[in-house]
């Protein structure tokens, strides 16, 4: 009996009905799997369908067709279980400004179903790990952007989920903060988490993704390791590989 991958998408489809533009297939019957201890990258330009795909997996949006599951739970039928097993981080997932860092971590651990008796220890370990100690009882709106980033990362894993989704996490971060973010994501991989990582920055995908899916107009044009993509296209740099697939799709 084969063990199902932590994240599976089969023929996943999302159609939006726009009053002026009509029907828009934002995600067009895509298939992929993400494995334990892997960083799976979704690489595409703005509007390619990366965020919609990740929102479908995190059950924020409902698929128009196809199937997807997280840790064996179907995104449509067991959406609550799916969300309890994943941590979602994006540039648009902000923190509650009027809660302290500690209250934030306690709240997210609790609401995501972390055992009540263990929350205190969990928060303490997160505070240590992300270096939050100094400002743990300070309200979030008083923190610097770097401090907020650390609290935000800690809140994403507050309930210790096996699957993590990072939707363009380094957008709007300076170089040092982006590098710190990449290091943390790598650490999560070492811990055996399954990580979905979307970006439009080629160098970032090149550096941290184990496998990369190139997505364009809602379709996955290619999905392989960086070496696999190099072999397939004969190009070395991801930027050239990406352009090659774009060209092919337009032809």
């Amino acid at each position, binding site marked *: 009996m084969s063990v199902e991958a932590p994240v599976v998408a089969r023929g996943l489809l999302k159609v939006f009905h726009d009053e002026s533009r009509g029907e828009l297939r934002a995600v067009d019957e895509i298939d992929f799997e993400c494995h334990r201890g892997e960083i799976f990258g979704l690489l595409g330009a703005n509007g390619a369908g990366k965020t919609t795909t990740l929102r479908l997996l995190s059950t924020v949006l409902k698929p128009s067709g196809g199937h997807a599951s997280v840790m064996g739970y179907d995104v449509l039928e067991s959406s609550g279980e799916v969300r309890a097993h994943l941590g979602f981080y*994006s540039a648009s*997932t902000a923190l509650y400004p009027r809660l302290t860092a500690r209250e934030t971590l306690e709240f997210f651990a609790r*609401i995501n179903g972390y055992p009540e008796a263990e929350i205190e220890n969990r928060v303490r370990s997160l505070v240590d790990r992300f270096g939050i100690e100094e400002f743990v009882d300070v309200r979030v709106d008083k923190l610097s952007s770097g401090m907020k980033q650390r609290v935000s990362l800690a809140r994403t894993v507050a309930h210790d989920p096996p699957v993590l989704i990072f939707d363009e996490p380094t957008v709007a971060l300076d170089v040092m903060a982006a590098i710190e973010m990449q290091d943390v994501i790598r650490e999560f991989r070492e811990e055996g988490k399954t990580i979905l990582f979307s970006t439009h920055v080629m160098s970032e995908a090149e550096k941290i993704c184990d496998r990369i899916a190139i997505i364009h107009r809602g379709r996955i044009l290619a999905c392989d390791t960086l070496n696999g993509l190099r072999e397939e296209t004969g190009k070395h740099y991801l930027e050239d590989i990406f352009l090659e697939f774009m060209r092919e799709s337009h032809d």
Partner: protein
Amino acid sequence: MKWREIGILYRMELRSALRERSIVVGSILIPLLLYPLLMWGIMSGLTFVMGQSESQVSRIASSADVESTRVFEALESDERVSVEILLPSHLDIRSRIRSGELDAWIELMPAAAELSPEFRKYHVVYDGSKDRSAVAETRIVESLDSLRTERMEDEAKRAGLGEEVWQQYSVASENLASSRQMGQFIMGLIVPMFLIIMVSAGAMYPAVDATAGERERGTWETLVSTAASPGSIITAKYLYVTTLSCAAGLLNLFAMLVSMRAIFAPMLASTGKNMEFKIPLASIPVIAAGALLLALFISAGMMLLASFARTFKEGQSMAAPLYVVSFLPMLFINSPGIVLTPKLALVPIVNIALVFREAISGTFQWPLIAVAVAVELVLVAAVLLLAQRVLRFEDVLIGSYSGSFFRFLKERIIRRSQT
């Protein structure tokens, strides 16, 4: 929907809200402090103005022919008045009164041939738009009235007539209402209106903060990607808004009672009118239940309207119409003669206002109260059903729909049900 989740979310919303200055001010401080401050302000203002007017000397000018009359003597003997005789060259009286240089002018009118030679007709000129001038006119009239009474008493004495003969009758009114009933009557006119205003005002900021504010801050997506179901999230927010709305109404009622007893009652007592501002104990649960029903309806409506906004400002302008609509009916029923009738029990908001009014005076028309409660519950259920239908649309739930509730209603609900 799980109650544990709702509890966690509710506590988080409330904790967060109680740290937001605008919510604390709008839902707690204003309801609690508005009345004491308002009454203190009005009383201090009135006392100051009255004191100012009373302490000022009225500058009255008269024509020379008044000098020889008893009226002139009476005015001159009044310490609050200074009288001067003006020569004909100074007779630009009207402009001097208008400019505030002079307060009033008194002159004798030519005697009419058909009347007794003793009859005097005085002409008083003053400016009613000026407080000081109006006070001067009152003082002149008071002096004239007092002279007339003195004269009549003298004449009656001279003719050997007793007071009961020349006065003919006297009036002794008996007010059957006790001082407590009088207080309840006054409260019945004021309390329902302010209670409704405060329940609406108390819901406004939390409703906008929980919907549009959440979107503006970017915490909405964080919240909907947690394990909590959308149903739990919305229920917790709804309960939180209702709590603050209801609390604003009840805090306001408490503050109003305290202010009326501590400030208004002593002031009335100093003018000889005794009023007791107490409400019957039995009316407290009825008023609390009414405030809760109103809060449930207003909170649901405001959250529904504000959920289409992307920013706090937009949310405020979208929810504001309900704020106005909620207390508009009060302007029409704020007459003491209107009571709870079977027809008025069917009118939302008005019915609860009338239940409040009657409960304050200890009147409970239970069948009509039941009708009013049923009407409000149906209304709340209708708004919640509509909200549930609206939130089935993914773009509204995630905040990507750009338009107001009314546009949405036209485009998605009315037009689709027609096709």
